[in-house]
């Protein structure tokens, strides 16, 4: 096998420090950028992402004087693959990471599912969060197709049977190996607006190199999409009563991984003093498409670290 190809990306920087925390028996990998003595800021990734998807964004915050602390959620990146996954468990794992930074409230930034999880954290443990930034992580409506009830019943039944079939095979599931280009091409289906160069870079930090090829590290038992009683409007119901000042950034270009949240849904639920920034020409991955612009918004909102 040829030696591992080194793929670089302009502005991308590996974390300065990595460590693990024990979240009630699940080992969570923590990645830090910036001076260990700077004030900490927590940064949560989205579903099917991992901490090192912040390799460009996190250094921009670190250069402004923040100790940027991100972590791979259970089942993602270098963290343990768990037996069970839920948002409540992700909130609890987040608290374990925060506990490793002390007990003082700190700024928390979350993208997509990481935004929804940190919103739940801020609503349930307001004493832990000083300021909250949500990057395209405010689901307000179900994106169900408009079909008659009896058809929807059949459709949901099909989804449920398909999920159960997947669970029956999950114990033996392994991710499909491939070259860097093949994995980048597969990921492009989830990230159609991101450059191939960036996706190739992500393979080298989010996949492992087995003898038969590269494999994404994410737990093969995890599956995109979902069902269950959860409703997007429940997330929005946490907004108006938030204690921590809020900055919400919404990417207006619709894409598969996004929520397609209409701005009016956010506007009516904004807490007092909350800031909403709409980015017209940007998709769901606001901080990857426009790292400098989003970092400047966040830094301005957070103020001087010291």
């Amino acid at each position, binding site marked *: 096998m040829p030696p591992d190809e080194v793929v670089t990306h302009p502005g991308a920087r590996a974390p300065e420090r990595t460590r693990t925390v024990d979240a*009630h028996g699940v080992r969570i990998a923590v990645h830090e950028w910036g001076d260990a003595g700077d004030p900490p800021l927590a940064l949560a990734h989205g579903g099917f992402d991992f901490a090192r998807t912040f390799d460009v964004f996190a250094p921009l915050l670190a250069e402004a004087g923040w100790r940027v602390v991100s972590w791979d959620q259970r089942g993602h990146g270098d963290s343990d693959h768990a*037996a069970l996954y839920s948002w409540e468990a992700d909130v609890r794992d987040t608290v374990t990471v925060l506990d490793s930074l002390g007990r003082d409230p700190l700024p928390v930034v979350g993208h997509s599912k990481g935004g929804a999880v940190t919103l739940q954290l801020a609503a*349930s443990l307001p004493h832990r969060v000083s300021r909250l930034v949500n990057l395209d992580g405010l689901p307000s409506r179900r994106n169900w197709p408009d079909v008659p009830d*009896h058809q929807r019943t059949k459709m949901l039944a099909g989804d449920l049977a398909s999920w*159960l079939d997947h*669970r029956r095979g999950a114990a033996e599931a392994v991710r499909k190996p491939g070259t860097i280009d093949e994995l980048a091409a597969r990921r492009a289906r989830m990230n159609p607006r991101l450059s191939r160069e960036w996706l190739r870079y992500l393979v080298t930090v989010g996949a492992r190199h087995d003898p038969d090829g590269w494999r994404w590290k994410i737990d093969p038992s995890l599956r995109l999409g979902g069902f269950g009683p959860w409703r997007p409007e429940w997330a929005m*119901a946490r907004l108006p009563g938030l204690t921590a000042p809020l900055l919400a950034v919404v990417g207006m270009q619709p894409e598969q991984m996004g929520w397609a949240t209409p701005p009016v849904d956010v506007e009516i639920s904004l807490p007092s003093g909350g800031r909403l920034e709409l980015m017209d020409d940007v998709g769901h991955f606001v901080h990857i498409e426009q790292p400098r612009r989003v970092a400047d918004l966040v830094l301005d909102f957070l103020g001087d670290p010291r």
Partner: protein
Amino acid sequence: MSAPAASPTVRVRHNRVELALHRLRGDDGAGGAGGAGAGRAGAGRALLHLHGLGERSPEAVPDRLASWPGPVWALDFTGHGASSLPAGGGYFCEVLMADTDAALAHLGAATIYGRGLGGYVALLIAGSRPDLVRGAVIDDGPGLTGGGTEPTTPFVLSQPLTTTGTPDPYALLELSQDVRPPDYASTYARQAATLSGLDVALAVSAVVRPPWLAAVAREPGARELSVAEALALFAAV
């Protein structure tokens, strides 16, 4: 054919969890416990018992299920009884539904009896595997109510719970807070009714009626029946 002398407990795998599936009453004439034909067809169909939140499977056929003519099995959910104990929680009812599906992969078609939380899970699996579930009975028991119809501000632990064995304290915490909107439950009842081909797919035997169960009881495919009536009805299917 007589029942084999094998251990009455079978281990079935659900992803990283090993579940304990207990045979409470033999499997005579249905291919032998654990055999490929076990639990299929006519009077030999299995009844699968699902316990309530924090409970474990009974060691013998409970009195109220004694009238069932066929084999009786009981499943310990993830983190309960003799099933394995996962680290760090993350429970939700649909994953217990998939536990039940792992048992059905072993048993084939079955009638399901659920207590409390197990009754809610019986509804979910009846709606998701309408071809395998030949009637589900929902009875009183721990965890019948769940965490209400919409979320409250959740209590999030910052201190680890002390885990000394089953039942897993994370299961008790998380599955007593799980949200059960009535229209979500109705969807499963409708699926069970329209896709199973049964006139009555669900028997509501519980005295306590949280909103999700009241909604289920109003669906055309559900009947309010005593456990004995329900077992007689489903045995004849």
